[in-house]
C-alpha cells in the first residue's frame, strides 16, 4: 500500500542530512526502495549504519522516505519539477534536489525491480535440456530416435514471508514432432511480440 506523499512526515527526512556523503544518501534511498517493500529487518540496521543514527529516529525517516520514493515511482515522474512539488515549500532545498536527482537516476532500475516482485504466476527461473538418441527398447531391438529431455525450474510464489519460495522442476520428454509443434507456438508468440512492440 502506498501512503501518498501528502501524509508523509517530511521533517523526519532531515535525518538524511546526517549522512557524511552524497553516496551514503544514494545507498539509503536504494536500500529503502528495494528492501522496504519486503519489511526486511536488515533494512533498519543497514540505514542506521549508513547514517550513524539511532534506530528510533531512523524508523520514522525510513517510513517517510519509503512513502515519498514509492509515490515518485508510482507516478513515474520524469521532470524534476514534478518531484520537487511533492515537498513542502519550506523543505531544505539541497536535500530536496538531491532526493529528486537520486529518484530520477534510479527510476528505471527501481521500476524493473518492482516488475520482478509484482503479482505473478510462478516464474520460470531456469531451464536445461539434453538431446538423447533412443537406441533400443524391449519392443524394438535397434532404433535411432532422437528425443529431447527438457527440465524447467519454476519458482513458486512465496507462501511464508520469511522463507524463500521453493523451486519445482518440470521434466518433459519431447519427440521431434512435439518440439516442432512447440516451435510453431513459440514463433506465433514472437510474431505477436513484435506487433506489440510496434504499437
Amino acid at each position, binding site marked *: 500500500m502506498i501512503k501518498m506523499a501528502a501524509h508523509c512526515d517530511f521533517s523526519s527526512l532531515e535525518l538524511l542530512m546526517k549522512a557524511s556523503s552524497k553516496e551514503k544518501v544514494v545507498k539509503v534511498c536504494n536500500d529503502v526502495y528495494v528492501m522496504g517493500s519486503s519489511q526486511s529487518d536488515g533494512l533498519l540496521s543497514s540505514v542506521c549504519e549508513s547514517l550513524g543514527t539511532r534506530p528510533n529516529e531512523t524508523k520514522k525517516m525510513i517510513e517517510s522516505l519509503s512513502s515519498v520514493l514509492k509515490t515518485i515511482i508510482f507516478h513515474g515522474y520524469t521532470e524534476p519539477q514534478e518531484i520537487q512539488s511533492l515537498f513542502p515549500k519550506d523543505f531544505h532545498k539541497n536535500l530536496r534536489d538531491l532526493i529528486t536527482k537520486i529518484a530520477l537516476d534510479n527510476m528505471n532500475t527501481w521500476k524493473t525491480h518492482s516488475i520482478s516482485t509484482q503479482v505473478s504466476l510462478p516464474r520460470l527461473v531456469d*531451464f536445461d535440456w539434453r538431446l538423447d538418441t533412443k537406441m533400443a527398447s524391449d519392443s524394438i531391438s535397434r532404433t535411432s530416435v532422437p528425443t529431447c529431455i527438457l527440465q524447467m525450474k519454476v519458482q513458486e510464489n512465496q507462501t511464508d514471508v520469511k522463507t524463500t519460495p521453493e523451486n519445482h522442476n518440470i521434466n518433459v520428454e519431447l519427440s521431434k514432432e512435439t518440439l*516442432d509443434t512447440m516451435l510453431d507456438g513459440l514463433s506465433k508468440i514472437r510474431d505477436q511480440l513484435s506487433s506489440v512492440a510496434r504499437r
Partner: protein
Amino acid sequence: MDLSERGLTAGKLVDMKWKLGVAVCSDECKSLNSPFVAMTLKVADASGKISTHTFELTIPQFQNFSEQMKDMAARMEMI
C-alpha cells in the same frame, strides 16, 4: 543435468498453451506496459496421469527459451 542419477523420470509433453500479456499497471507503478508470456504445459507420466504446470516468463527469458528450442530442433535434424 543427469536425470537418471536423481531418479527422476520425464513425462511426455502433451499440450502447451500460451498467452502473451501486458502488465498495464500495478500497485507500485501507475504505468507499466510490461509484456510477459504465460504458459501452461500438460505433462503425462508413465501411467498416463496428466499434470498441468502454469508459469510466467519475462520477455528476455522467453527469447532465450525460444532460441534454445530452435537450436535443439536444428541439432535433432542432424542426428
